[in-house]
């Protein structure tokens, strides 16, 4: 079963003379365990693609399948449940709730999903621990550094049984070393059953992905082929 599938997805905003085609028949398949990066200039449709994949907005035409389930066949409530349970979002500006501690921010989606507060909190602490933030669990967002806040946001996105991690410029305004740390975490999170899609204009961040898809004017312009082994870059006789 694919983690995410977009079939000929189009998105049109406005109508008549004000009509804007944000996506034009884009198809994409993301297997479990894979990390795919979407690159493209501003206005190429990359963020729209992500919000449609995460069922935050509807496609004008085409079909979106998350974990093999067609979003169009689901009720509003079912889709909301899918977003809470199976999809994790990471945004550029972190989107942490300022009045909640790091641990509360991370366990919130589980509690909203009906999990007992204690169980949710345990899962949240475990996710924070995995991201090296165990000692920051009781801090509020404004007591954390930018890099730490982003790690909390990633912990929130992967907590519980998430199968799909969707990230829009996840390293935001972080410096290059912190941005790399974020991508290492996203990379680590995407294995086994979990797949990820990262939208970025930064080639260095995109290069952490297994596959990079290039969008232009709402169409897929190209994508990188499967990766050869790293030995291909090293001089002959070097890669033993």
């Amino acid at each position, binding site marked *: 079963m694919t983690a995410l599938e977009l079939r000929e997805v189009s998105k049109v905003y406005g109508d008549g003379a004000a009509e804007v085609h944000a996506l034009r028949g884009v198809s994409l398949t993301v297997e479990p365990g894979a990390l795919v990066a979407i690159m493209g*200039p501003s206005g190429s449709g990359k963020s729209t693609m992500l919000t449609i994949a995460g069922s935050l907005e509807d496609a004008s035409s085409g079909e979106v399948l998350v974990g093999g389930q067609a979003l169009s066949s689901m009720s509003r409530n079912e889709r909301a449940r899918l977003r809470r349970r199976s999809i994790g979002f990471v945004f550029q500006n972190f989107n942490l709730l300022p009045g909640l501690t790091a641990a509360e921010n991370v366990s919130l989606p589980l509690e909203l999903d009906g999990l007992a507060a204690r169980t949710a909190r345990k899962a949240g602490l475990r996710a924070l621990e995995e991201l090296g933030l165990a000692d920051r669990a009781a801090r509020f967002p404004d007591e954390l550094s930018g890099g730490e806040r982003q790690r909390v946001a990633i912990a929130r996105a992967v907590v519980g049984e998430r199968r799909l991690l969707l990230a829009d410029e996840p390293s935001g305004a972080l410096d290059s070393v912190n941005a790399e740390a974020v991508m290492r975490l996203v990379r680590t999170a995407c294995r086994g059953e979990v797949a990820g899609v990262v939208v970025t204009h*930064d080639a260095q961040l995109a*290069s*952490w992905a297994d596959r*990079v898809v*290039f969008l232009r004017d709402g169409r897929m312009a190209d994508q990188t082929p499967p990766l050869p082994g*790293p030995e*291909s870059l*090293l001089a002959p006789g*070097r890669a033993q």
Partner: protein
Amino acid sequence: MSVPHALLALLSEGPKYGLQLREEFEARTGEVWPLNVGQVYTTLQRLERNGLVESEGAADEGPQKMFVITAAGDEELGAWLRTPPDLASPPRDELVIKVLVAMRLPGIDMPAVLQVHRTYLVQLMQQWTRIKEDAAEDDLALLLAVDAELFRLDSVVRWLDSADSRIRRNPVAAAAKAASPAPLPRLRRTVGGRR
């Protein structure tokens, strides 16, 4: 990469054998720049001729010969470390030339041309990133050498992106150039007033 100065740097730590120098050079540069033994010995001979290193042991001892940096070698190394490399004159970049030529040919799909190069560069970056991912956290030499390559490739991708956006904003100029081919610009001007 200046091999003579890299060897001087290694010798500034103490006397070393030729083979040892090769191994240490490769280890310190994250094994990104391979060096053959012949190149090491030719360079050492040249350094010796210029009085920057001295050898201990008989001339026919080959690999058993030990090399030592001289006072002049130390001075040369210090001066080299502080001298910025010559980045003032633009390099004759093949990709820039290809794009400038393509822009002047009629019927060329510029975005498609730029995309071919962009995909290839990102693919290379993915391979370097894999090496970085597998590198030990304390292998600073490898991490720095791979970062240097990633930043270099990234700058080319950014240039392609900006070329794409300039051509898109100014399609009339791009088409007019195609209709009446003008000579390629001469980048005679240099920055920094070095020459």
